[in-house]
């Protein structure tokens, strides 16, 4: 999960233009990246491209994408569901 978190963090940094770091074992709220109405979509696309998963349903109830940890958990569940367990 740490490796997956690291990849999610890289996606968030890339889209937001930030260079935030994540101390081992901690979490970050996505608010830290100051996504706006456009960049949150760009973040979704970045995750989809990086992991090959679909994000739409996650946002239907707006619960999964609140922190890096919950985002990584969501991505992991999608990867497991698609039979692609190679999450690094």
């Amino acid at each position, binding site marked *: 999960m740490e490796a997956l978190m690291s990849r999610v963090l890289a996606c968030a940094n890339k889209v937001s233009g930030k260079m935030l770091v994540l101390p081992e074992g901690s979490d970050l709220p996505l608010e830290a990246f100051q996504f706006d109405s456009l960049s949150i*979509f760009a973040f979704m696309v970045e995750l989809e491209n990086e992991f090959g998963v679909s994000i739409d349903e996650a*946002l239907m109830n*707006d619960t999964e994408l609140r922190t890096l940890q919950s985002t990584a958990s969501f991505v992991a569940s999608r990867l497991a569901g698609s039979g692609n367990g190679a999450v690094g």
Partner: protein
Amino acid sequence: MTGDLLLGSDWVRPVHHAPGYVFGAASPEESTLVGVLSRHAAAAPEAPFLTGLDDAPQRRLTYAGAHAEVLRRAAVLQSWNLRRGDRVGLLGANSVDFALAVLACLEGGAVAVLLNHRDPVERIAHRAEFTGVRFLLHDSGLAAAAEVCGCAQRLCAFDEFGRLAASVNDKPLLGPPMPTDAALIFFTSGTTGMPKAVVQSHYAVAQNAIALARHHRIGPGMRLLCVLPLHHVNGLEFTILGAMSGGGHTYVCQGFDGLKFWPLVEEHQIHIASLVPNLLRLLADRPGLRGGRGQSLRYAVSAAAPLSVAIAENAWTRLGLRIVQGYGLSEVTNFTCVLPADLPDAEYQRWMTQGRRTSIGPALPGQEVRIAGAPGEEGEICIRGNSVMSGYLHNELATNEAFEGGWFHSGDLGYAVAGATGGDFIQVSGRVREIAKRSGAMIHLLEVDEVLGTLPGILDFASAAFANRWVDEEIGAVVVKEPGSAATEESIIEHCRQRLPFAESPKAIVFVEEVPRTATGKVRRAEIAGSFAAHADRLFVDRRARAATKEG
């Protein structure tokens, strides 16, 4: 009535109108918007008019309530010794207070100057001074920006303006404005040189709003969603003034939020949402976000930039959403053409999803479109009619150039296709002018070039608009460095960013041996645009603003 008409104390401009539409032929009630609010207030006092979804606390006004608020605000303006034609600057994010301030200006005989609160303060001050702003109404959070406008005799925050209005019992004393009086001023350009300030008369504003209300069949109970800025024509003149003309109800948001769009449509049972192509693309690319919600939405209106067939098709097939595309500019008081809203499905698809380009429909009543050049061929879209601007303030030369031959020259290329039931439908095919359309906002590339020209250590340069999935078009530049120049991509971008708003600054720089030009020296901007293909999918973010936000 034809010929020159006095529109203000310091300038005279001709009124341009279409054959068959005699200026002054509209009834007095339809020659200005003054009185529209009072008629709705009398006919349906409890009908809702404005809901501020992002106002704190959320706020809803009926027509009667809004009418009373507007009259009191107009009285406050006049208590400041406002003279007819005085310019009142408006600086703020979308809110009910902002809309009420515009209406108070119209009612009270002032000219509302629409300032962009996201502009650098120097530009805000420059534009306020250029237009001779005497009073400045602003968001309380923008007091520092307002302070820079030294020309204004009085600054007043919107909330304070509302408090003053609450203590006023008087009605405005000045009589109603003349149809030819200036009503609104919008800016279309002017980064470093003389701004182009578009002056719209009460007549033009009223005729456009009334035509739009009829086109969209806006009436009591019709609910519109406003997410576009009120300092632009579409946000203000369609979703507020057009809705008001028909007696509709507008839900005002500070901006578009893709994650909240469908929940908002569902919660408030919105019928029409006015958007721009890049926002529609986000929605069409993410059909899962809809999740069956928002069935009340009859269609989305799209304007400000050409809508691609792919977006229209995706919206149709993935969302079941019809898009009614319109076309216009500040210079023609918002919309000139709009696709009919009630086309049969087959004809809708013919115009929007099955051709090479989407259509902007025929001209609205009261306006006339001509394609310059041979019949049936591509040419510049030229417009005349009841809604064309009075002119550019303090810019006789630009006004005369724009109205060469008695028609307003749009700078856009198009061609006409015969409609099934007669009349021409217009397709927009390109541009004559050197502009970019970023998220629906027009950016003049020559103004970007002006700033690039202040860079030390470079031999030649040119900016260009390149395709970008997030904002439709972004700005890039090619630069030829002097030998030994230390200029880097980062230093050039920062140089521009210090002098231009983020939207107008180049986001990518490519160093070249030579700027592509025609034999006559004209920059080949389309060719330059190809240099930025690698950035087509990249979202550029304003790091400076984010840093400031964090610090603030």
